[in-house]
């Protein structure tokens, strides 16, 4: 498959402190990729390396088939930094024109593209106003507009919706999905798991600088299914039989909560109860949210060294 991003043991150390360590990622073109992890995990560090703000301590990366550090390839890369600060003495339109020139646009192409992205992010009509007078959310929209200027094939967004209201968030989600439908690749750092869940194809979890889990969202979901059953006539033998399928099991009176690794195990559980002489009163699959996954993979307290 054609990869938009590939990294090989990419590592950044701040002195002795680890920013991120031995990151190996493969993001195919046309995906929305969610990069998740707690504060200080190293998400921004990775993005900054990929966009060329930081120089890796070791390791390699390839973006759109070009080695990291190639300036030409940046014509097709958009980036929205975490803190979205801009030359705020410029008016919105001037700001975008400046960034468009940095991307090498000029003349009418520049004018046209600037008004397109202004429309896209919902700042049309505000372009004559100085960026200084923008609200935080408007600034973030302006930042997103800058990132969209070159009609990028690869878009890095470091928490793009942190300052937006619910409608703004929805707008951004729609923009991202539209871009994806056009075949663009989006690399998204975010804490807002419900959003990630709605739009991402694949995710990676990072903790203390290391990737601890990655995969398609769908696979991750089905590899961690929680089933809740109400069972009458539970015997120790039946419990033991159920435990063989479970990655974890919890019991409260006749309520049994079991985690299984694949969907095919769900009917097997039912069969076990019946053949083991139990009475199955109720059984349902709990939808595993990304949030639970996030907490179970990145939380848990245990140190990963």
């Amino acid at each position, binding site marked *: 498959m054609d990869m938009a991003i590939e990294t090989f043991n990419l590592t950044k150390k701040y002195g002795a402190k680890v920013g991120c360590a031995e990151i190996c990622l493969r993001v195919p073109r046309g995906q929305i990729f969610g990069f998740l992890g707690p504060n200080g995990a190293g998400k921004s560090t990775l993005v900054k390396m990929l966009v*060329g703000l930081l120089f890796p301590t070791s390791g390699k990366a390839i973006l759109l088939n070009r080695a990291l550090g190639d*300036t030409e390839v940046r014509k097709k890369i958009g980036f*929205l*930094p975490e803190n979205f600060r801009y*030359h705020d003495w410029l008016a919105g339109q001037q700001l975008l024109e400046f*960034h468009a020139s*940095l991307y090498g646009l000029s003349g009418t192409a520049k004018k046209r593209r600037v008004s397109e992205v202004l429309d896209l992010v919902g700042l049309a009509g505000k372009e004559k106003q100085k960026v200084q007078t923008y609200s935080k959310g408007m600034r973030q929209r302006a930042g997103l507009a800058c990132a969209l200027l070159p009609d990028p094939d690869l878009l890095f967004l470091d928490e793009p919706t942190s300052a937006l209201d619910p409608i703004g968030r929805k707008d951004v989600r729609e923009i991202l999905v539209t871009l994806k439908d056009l075949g663009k690749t989006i690399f998204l750092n975010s804490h807002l798991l419900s959003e990630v869940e709605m739009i991402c194809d694949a995710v990676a979890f990072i903790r203390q600088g290391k990737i601890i889990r990655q995969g398609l969202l769908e696979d991750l979901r089905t590899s961690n299914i929680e089933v809740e059953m109400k069972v009458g006539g539970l015997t120790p033998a039946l419990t033991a039989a159920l435990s063989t399928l479970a990655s974890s099991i919890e019991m409260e009176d006749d309520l049994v909560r079991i985690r299984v690794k694949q969907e095919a195990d769900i009917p097997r559980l039912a069969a076990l109860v019946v053949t083991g002489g139990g009475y199955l009163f109720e059984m349902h699959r709990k939808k595993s949210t990304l949030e639970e996954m996030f907490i179970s993979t990145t939380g848990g307290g245990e140190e990963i060294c």
Partner: protein
Amino acid sequence: MLTMMGITFREGLNRKVLLISLILAVIFLGLYGTGVHYAAKSFNEHPNPILAAVVYPQLLSFGLYFGGFIVSFLAIFSAVGAISAEIETGIIQAVITKPIRRCDYVWGKFLGLGLFLALYAALFFIVIAMIINVKTGLVLDGQWRALGLFALQPVVLLAVTLFGSVVLPTIANGVVMFMLYAVAVIGGMVEQIGWLISNTGLQQAGIVTSLVMPVDSLYRKIVHLLMRPTDNPINALQQMGPFGSMAEPSVWMVVYALLYVVFFTGLAAYAFGRKDI
């Protein structure tokens, strides 16, 4: 690079420091003009050609000396955070991730600010030269070359300050640059005194400081260009005092200053090219 140059130039025009420098310049030139006016008036009423021949050039060098002060002030203040402040605020993050090379970013900044400062200095020089010329009728030789050197002064400061702005935080850079500038100014004075009392130790100290920071020797060169020493018995008197120039810096000093500018800007570009933001 041109885009960076353009935005930097516009930024210079937008900054408060320009406004303050303009106000300072107007106050200074107003006072200076008044001073020259009354000096010229009293010489017109009680003609004393010998004294006038000493005082007029002194007035001129006085004007250029303090004019250089104001221009240098503007140079340091406008360049002190040219890069570091953008790093500190994070403005830079969306800029250098664009398809431009990092050295183009630095050279763009240099050219934008350099153009802005050189224009400001040139304007300043022209006003002072006109005040002197109109009021005292003093004919200035070599004024175009002097103008060029006067405009070079802030550019020299800009180059080092820009380098400082890559390797130091804004505040630290400001402190270092003002110290460096003070060294140049004091070094220049010391050298003058050295020539006056023929003390080679002091003269050499002055030469060393002008190698560290050649701004002051550019000023001395300007004074020489404007007041030709040839067949002028009172030239020694004209060049006396802290604002004069008893020993003309050679043309190599100018070459040195130009190399100095290229060297420090190049060094800034090099250091910036490997910097983590």
